[in-house]
């Protein structure tokens, strides 16, 4: 498949001013977006994909929130001044693949005005940075703790239930000689660990580790010629969930959008999934994500993880068999890479025998970036064995 003839540029708009001391970058993003959409005869509510560079706030998460965009496709490829040309190509790919229909690409910056105001690089803070930067939101844990408090309030989720997630991860990590934490733990030990940001304790938090990871994705033609067992990509969905103009709901994640898209594209259901890699920055992340992906009802995640549900190889839904971010690895404070890598190991049958899911045919990997306490990028991939 090529993009030839599969996508069209319908709107274009260049900001008329050359010196804009009276605006923020966010305002300029919205102004050029409005201009291009008007040029196309479309409106903000038509947009289902958004592309920008990483220079304004938290990139597309901040700007999708500012403009109220509800996106099912997002790209912030950062290649300096050429970024927006990349974005056109990537938008066409996404449209050709059926991922989206109306892609908005914006650029804004004020190096002339903001530099005069004394800010290096001409960057000014986005509203989310200003209005959330004053209250002692100390590290990622505080945002996830806010979500945990609300989940507990609405659904009766308990610290003991959250601890079960950590226990399952630790049972897996004991078989991983590279894991940062290799000692199995208990619910009691988790509850005895120091409180970091109530209701989350130290052992509800992922590890902080150096490291990295990489993946190679190839065409079917290349895969066919390789001796190495490959893994088939069956489906993918993505979403940016944000504070939605003061209506933030901390009880769910962007997986409520990304999950159904991925399942539909893959043509499978939750019952078909043999193994899941679930982003586990914190225990609450796993509980909310399992609900949002439809493995249990909303609010039932705390009860779902009891009784060894997540423990490989024989739990109902084995998860994070490398030990996950909670015990094994969270390189660069970004756990999405290792989530996909462990799913590949499971589908290749190459995990430790003690945690290898028998006859693992279909796996799901889910990533959560940013914060479930504010705004997040969520992405779900469903993978199958080479012959799936």
């Amino acid at each position, binding site marked *: 498949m090529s993009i030839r003839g599969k996508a069209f540029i319908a709107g274009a708009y260049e900001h008329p001013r050359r010196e804009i001391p009276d605006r923020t970058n966010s305002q300029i993003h919205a102004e050029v977006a409005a201009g291009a959409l008007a040029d196309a005869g479309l409106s903000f509510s038509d947009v289902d994909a958004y592309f920008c560079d990483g220079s304004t706030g938290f990139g597309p998460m901040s700007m999708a929130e500012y403009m109220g965009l509800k996106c099912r496709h997002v790209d912030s490829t950062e290649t300096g001044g050429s970024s927006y040309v990349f974005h056109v190509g990537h938008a066409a790919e996404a449209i050709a693949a059926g991922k989206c229909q109306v892609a908005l690409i914006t650029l804004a910056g004020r190096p002339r005005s903001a530099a005069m105001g004394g800010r290096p690089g001409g960057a000014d803070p986005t*509203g989310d940075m200003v209005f959330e930067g004053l209250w*002692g939101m100390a590290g990622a844990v505080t945002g996830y703790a806010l979500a945990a408090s609300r989940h507990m*309030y609405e659904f009766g989720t308990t610290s003991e239930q959250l601890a079960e997630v950590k226990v399952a991860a630790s049972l897996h990590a004991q078989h991983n000689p590279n894991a940062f934490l290799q000692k199995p733990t208990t619910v009691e030990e988790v509850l005895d660990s120091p409180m970091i940001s109530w209701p989350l304790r130290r052992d509800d938090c992922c590890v902080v580790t150096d490291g990295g990871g990489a993946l190679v994705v190839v065409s079917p033609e290349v895969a066919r010629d390789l001796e190495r067992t490959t893994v088939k990509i069956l489906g993918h969905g993505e979403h940016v969930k944000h504070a939605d103009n003061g209506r933030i709901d901390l009880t769910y994640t962007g997986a409520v959008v990304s999950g159904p898209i991925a399942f539909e594209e893959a043509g499978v259901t939750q019952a078909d999934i043999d193994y899941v890699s679930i982003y586990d920055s914190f225990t609450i992340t796993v509980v909310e994500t399992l609900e949002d992906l439809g493995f249990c009802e909303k609010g039932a995640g705390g009860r779902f993880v009891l009784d060894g549900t997540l423990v490989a190889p024989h739990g109902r839904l084995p998860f994070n068999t490398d030990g996950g971010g909670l015990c094994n690895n969270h390189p660069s404070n970004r756990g999405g890479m290792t989530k996909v890598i462990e799913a590949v190991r499971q589908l290749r049958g190459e995990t430790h025998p003690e945690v290898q899911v028998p006859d693992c045919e279909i796996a799901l990997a889910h990533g959560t970036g940013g914060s479930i306490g504010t705004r997040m990028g969520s992405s779900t991939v469903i993978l199958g064995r080479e012959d799936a």
Partner: protein
Amino acid sequence: MSHDLPTPAPRITPENQEFWAATAQHKLLLMRCDNCGNPIWYPRTFCPDCGTFDTSWSEASGRGTVYAFTIVHRSMIDGYRQAVPYVLAYVELEEGPRIMTNIVGCEPDAVRVGMPVRVVFHDTGEDNALYRFEPAGSQ
């Protein structure tokens, strides 16, 4: 009890300067969309609900309830590091928006989801003030 949280000054931009100027008079402003009437939070000159640029300021009542909170025991942020434990929260304003803030004026352990709160202002010394919230029943 007096608060012992730090009072960092906000970063002023062309988009938020009127909001922060009002805090010097201990007023909490809300941006509203002139088109759809919805309140807009955080304040911006664009309505994310209907995609228009027609907005104007109004004053919020300063009353609300705790939507979610955490008691922070470890903090690496200077000023806050010395103030643990403190309460970071979302307060749902009477007008609707859920806004991030601190709960002060009571022991952290006394905070509950759903608790009625009212705004207080802590001056930053830079002609503006931080909006925080205390239990609505306290003096």
